[in-house]
Each structure stands twice: as structure tokens, then as C-alpha cells.
């Protein structure tokens, strides 16, 4: 039944030509995220990371392609499945893994954990665990940009399962009414925990919600990081130049369970395999070689560099001191 959600949204024609420089940069980021999360999964299995751990493995092209469309001063607000988003916005693998390990050197000092990564210097605004609750916050960040007449854009990520809850609708309604410079990006990975989208949405096209608010909308497959980058760029510039918000649905897929504790039995092996053929990371590499004519040497070097970066990050996290204080953070004196 869920296979019907496998249809492509659009024809291949919409492929974006492979720009070698841009694509290798984005490939580098996606690979960094992939390896970082693989390391996290391993550490979790070893009991070095606790609580909930939601991996984005398989979805990397969405956060990487979308955030590459931003300027450094732009903002990102995300869900609990946000390791890749933080990394793409500039947070180091060291600071992310140290946070997952509950260390003082973590990006949130070990107080937030996997679901609550925050990085002020990089304008990464979290990391939220209540479904839909972060959407009004993103509208509020965009409200501030309009209030101060800054030409800064806010990207708000959410899952398709989060598009039925009140907070989501209210945040979107206010952004549309007040014309706030925000882009709502739905990472439609077809499942909300064990719930396939056809059991949670009467209209499976999440971007259709834009019609209720007269908001611009777009919708496309998320396996090609260049397509994501190109299409999100259009929306980001619309937000920046015209102060028009956009609702975007990107179809993607998580290769792992909802969280580490989810065996994912609600999906057939075939379905998962089908999607793995469209792995955004290998897709990017293939396009680099076949279309951008990138040479193997360069790619090997890049991959070695990533391997090293993540190994160092794990070592850093393991050797860092544990989180050691929380009282000073409840209130600002």
C-alpha cells in the first residue's frame, strides 16, 4: 500500500546541471553528516549516547541543499531530527557529537542532547521536541527580521506528520497574513514514526496546505541535492526580496528507524531497498563522476578528510568532561 507513495513527483527533466564546485561542496557536507550519524549510531549501541536519537540518514540532501541556499546571517529552525541541519549551518561534528555524548563541550553544554542542538553564532535556533511547536517560533524569528528591516531569511523544517497539528497551522497562518520572510520546508519522508502519510493526511501533498493561506508553494523530490538547492533558492530569494513566505514539500526517505529504538517493521524490505537506490549521497557522487567529471583522486581525498574529521570528533566527544552544571541556565540573572 505504501508503495504508491514511491511514485516520483516529477519527471527527470527538472534535473539541475551538475556544477562541479557546488556539488562537491554539498557532497562533502552530506558525507560528513552521513558519517557523523553513523558514528552516533555506533556510540548509541555502545551506550555512550542516551535518550532518543533520531537519524536523518537518507535525507541529507534536504538539509544540505536547502541550507546551502542561505546566507550565513540567515536563520534555521528545525525539529528533533536536526543533526544534519546544525552541521550544514556550521556547527562542528565535534560540538554535535559531544552534545550527544552529554559533555560540557557539547554545543548545548550537554543540557539539550540530540533533540535540542542550538548554535547561536551560526544562527541555528534549535532543535525542538514538541511536534509543530517550533513553527510559530520560526515565524517569530522572521517577524523580527521584518521588524528590524533586515534582509534575513528563516528556514523552518518540519516533517509531514507535523502538518496536522495546531501549532503548525497557526505559525503558517501568521506568516502568510503578515508576509514574513520564512520558508517552510516539509521533509516528507512518508512516515511519522510508524504511521505512513496516507494514514495521517487526507491530502498527501503537504504543499497544498499553502492554498488555505494564499501562500506560494513548491514540491519536488529530495534525492538530488542540486535540485533541492535550486528550488529552495527560488523560495529563499522570494522571501528575502518580496517578503513572501513559501510552503515546500520535499519527498525524501529515512533509511533507519524513527529513532534508535524503532525496528521499523512497518516498512517492507523492498520499499527500503527501492529508496536506497536513490541514496542522495551516492547520487551526488555518481553525478560528480559522470556529469561533472570529478576525478577519483579528489573524491578519495575528500572522503578521507571526512573520515578523519568524524574520527577526531568522536575522540573529542569521548575525551571531553561530562556536563557539570545546569542551575545557572534556568534563569538569566
Amino acid at each position, binding site marked *: 500500500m505504501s508503495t504508491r507513495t514511491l511514485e516520483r513527483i516529477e519527471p527527470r527533466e527538472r534535473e539541475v546541471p551538475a556544477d562541479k564546485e557546488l556539488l562537491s561542496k554539498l557532497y562533502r557536507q552530506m558525507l560528513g553528516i552521513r558519517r557523523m550519524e553513523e558514528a552516533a549510531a555506533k556510540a548509541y549501541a555502545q551506550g555512550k549516547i542516551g535518550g532518543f536519537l533520531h537519524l536523518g540518514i537518507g535525507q541529507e540532501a534536504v538539509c544540505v541543499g536547502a541550507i546551502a541556499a542561505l546566507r550565513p546571517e540567515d536563520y534555521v*529552525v528545525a525539529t528533533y531530527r536536526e543533526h544534519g541541519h546544525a552541521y550544514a549551518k556550521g556547527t562542528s561534528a565535534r560540538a554535535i557529537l559531544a552534545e550527544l555524548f552529554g559533555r560540557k563541550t557539547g554545543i548545548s553544554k550537554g543540557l539539550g542532547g540530540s533533540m535540542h542542538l*542550538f548554535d547561536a553564532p551560526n544562527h541555528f535556533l*534549535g532543535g525542538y521536541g514538541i511536534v509543530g*511547536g517550533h513553527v510559530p517560533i520560526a*515565524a517569530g524569528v522572521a517577524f523580527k527580521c521584518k521588524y528590524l528591516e533586515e534582509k534575513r531569511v528563516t528556514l523552518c523544517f518540519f516533517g509531514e506528520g507535523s502538518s496536522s497539528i495546531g501549532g503548525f497551522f497557526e505559525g503558517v497562518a501568521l506568516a502568510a497574513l503578515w508576509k514574513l520572510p520564512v520558508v517552510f520546508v516539509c521533509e516528507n519522508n512518508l512516515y511519522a514514526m510508524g504511521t505512513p502519510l496516507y494514514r495521517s493526511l487526507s491530502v498527501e501533498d503537504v504543499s497544498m496546505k499553502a492554498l488555505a493561506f494564499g501562500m506560494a508553494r513548491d514540491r519536488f523530490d529530495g534525492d538530488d541535492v542540486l535540485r533541492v538547492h535550486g528550488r529552495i533558492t527560488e523560495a529563499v530569494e522570494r522571501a528575502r526580496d518580496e517578503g513572501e513566505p513559501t510552503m515546500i514539500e520535499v519527498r525524501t526517505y529515512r533509511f533507519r528507524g524513527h529513532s534508535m529504538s524503532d525496528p521499523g517493521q512497518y516498512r517492507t524490505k523492498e520499499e527500503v531497498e527501492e529508496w536506497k537506490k536513490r541514496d542522495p549521497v551516492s547520487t551526488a557522487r555518481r553525478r560528480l563522476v559522470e556529469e561533472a567529471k570529478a576525478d577519483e583522486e579528489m573524491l578519495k581525498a575528500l572522503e578521507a578528510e571526512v573520515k578523519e574529521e568524524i574520527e577526531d570528533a568522536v575522540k573529542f566527544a569521548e575525551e571531553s568532561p561530562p556536563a557539570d552544571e545546569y542551575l545557572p*541556565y534556568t*534563569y538569566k540573572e
Partner: protein
Amino acid sequence: MAVISYREALNQAMTEEMERDPNVFLMGEEVGHYQGAYKVSQGMLARFGERRVVDTPIAECGFAGVGVGAAMVGLRPIIEFMTWNFSLVAIDQIINNAAKIRQMSGGQFTIPIVFRGPGGCAVQVAAQHSQALEAFYAHVPGLKVIMPSVPSDAKGLLKAAIRDDNPVVFIESETLYSVTGEVPPGEYTISIGKGDVKRPGKDATIVSWSKALHTVVEAAKLLDKEGIDVEIVDPRTLRPLDDEIIFDSVRKTHRCVVVGEGWPVAHFGKEIAYRVQKMCLDDLDAPVEVVTSEDVPMPYARNLELEVLPAAKDVVDAVKAALYVE
């Protein structure tokens, strides 16, 4: 000293702070063109314009969250709830975001925001519109909770709340808006967490705040006629609570009655009672009594509403019980 209404005091506080800091803005239902559902923001739209006095659709969760997001990145929002009853659809934003973001981010983000509006019951607005929810907000670490009873406190504390870098829950009262009182001239703030003795006395301590305090003042007059001289302590802020001013009074009078509107079970008054019995057990000549509303959703009919609310007579009886006189 000028005599102004509680409503004007709030209006002055917001106006002065918005003049002082361009990042302070007011947002809520009917705060602008309508001049405020209870006219608290009268004239502010004309003075500051639509950019800083923002009318919203009916979407409390949405605009409370917009306030939190704006506060994260440097603005200082004042979010008005038409009444606190409607905060129940926005409480997730207040508790899970406003109160926790600083902690979750390891101190990277602060949330300088004020959520304000009238709490408790007005007159015959029935069960869904007659709730005193301070016990909920006072329960939550990360929030500050302020409940002024008179115009001077309302002004000084609202200004302090707007300048505070933490999320503040500021609970007013529809029935207090027209109450007048003296207000010091010019600029002033009152530090959050400082109580105030509203009436000195020696026979018993009554702790009360907001609207209920006025009922207590009435009761004090009745008791006075019977030669009972009560001390009225107004904490003004429930979180943080000024323990010392309460303990000092109880150690002097050896009797303590707490009076507050709202449902009795897990009422904030029980927190005060706990602290008093814990720190002053040997000073107490009688159990701490807590006088509250009755344990029911508020009925509409006026006669029943009056039965449910704490009345001067209930306070008089409680004080006498604490003094073992009838």
C-alpha cells in the same frame, strides 16, 4: 503622587518602556485598533503605529510562539492574552519553549518576554472564562510570575518585567482595572520577588495577592471592629516568592492565613502554607489556613458565583479559627 487606575498604570508602564527601548513591542488580540479588549492599550497604536502595536488573529499558540521566536533573536515582546483563560491553548509555547530554551541551549539564548492579561474571574462569565491559573505557571521553572494588587505595584512591576531577561507571566485582573491608587511620579521599577506589607498588624498574618487582597482588606476592617488586628502581606510575585517577608510576619503573629482565588487542590496557597509550616512550625500557634474558591467549575448565576468565590466573611472565619475565637 498622582492617583491613577490600575489600567492606566499598565498603559504607562508599557508606553514608557516602548519609548525607552525600540525593541519592545506589544502583540495580541484587539490591542491596536480596538484599543485593547479592556482598553489597557488605549492610545498605543496611535503613538507607536502598527509595527509595534500588533493586532493578531485568534491564534494564541501562534502569536505566543511568535513572541518566543522574536525574543530569541533580540526583541522584547509583550504578548497580551485577552484573558489568561485563553492561555491554555498556548501553554505549550510558554512551558515547553519560553521557559526551557535557555536551559536547553546551555544558556545561549535568553527569552526576554512578558505574557500578560487579566486572570481570575470577572462577573458571571462562567466556567471557561473564570479561571485563576497562577498555580500552573508558578509550578514551572524558567518562568517568573507576577500578580500585582494595586496600580503602583502594577506599574513598577510591569516595567521590571519588561526589562527582565526571563519569560514573565504577568497576571492582572478585569475587576482591578478600574481600581485607582497613588503612583509615584516619574520613572520607577519594583524589583521582582519583593513582597510588601499592605497593612501592619499583630494578631495574625494574612498572605494574599491580586484581586483577593482587596477582599482581605475588607475582612481586615471587619476584624478590626472586633479588635483583631491583622497584618496583610502581599508577595506581589509568586515566583520567585519572598519567603522572608512572610516568615518574619508569621514569627511575629504566630498565625497564618493565605487567601487566594482559584481551585483549592494544589492551589499556590498550599505552597506558601508548606513553607510556613516547614520554617516556622514552632512559631505557629495554629495550623496555616488557606482560603480559596470552591472546588468547582465556576457557575454562571451571580448568587452561585458569589458562593464559590472567597468572601470577606470566609477570611474573617479563617482568621478567627486560627485565633480559636468564634
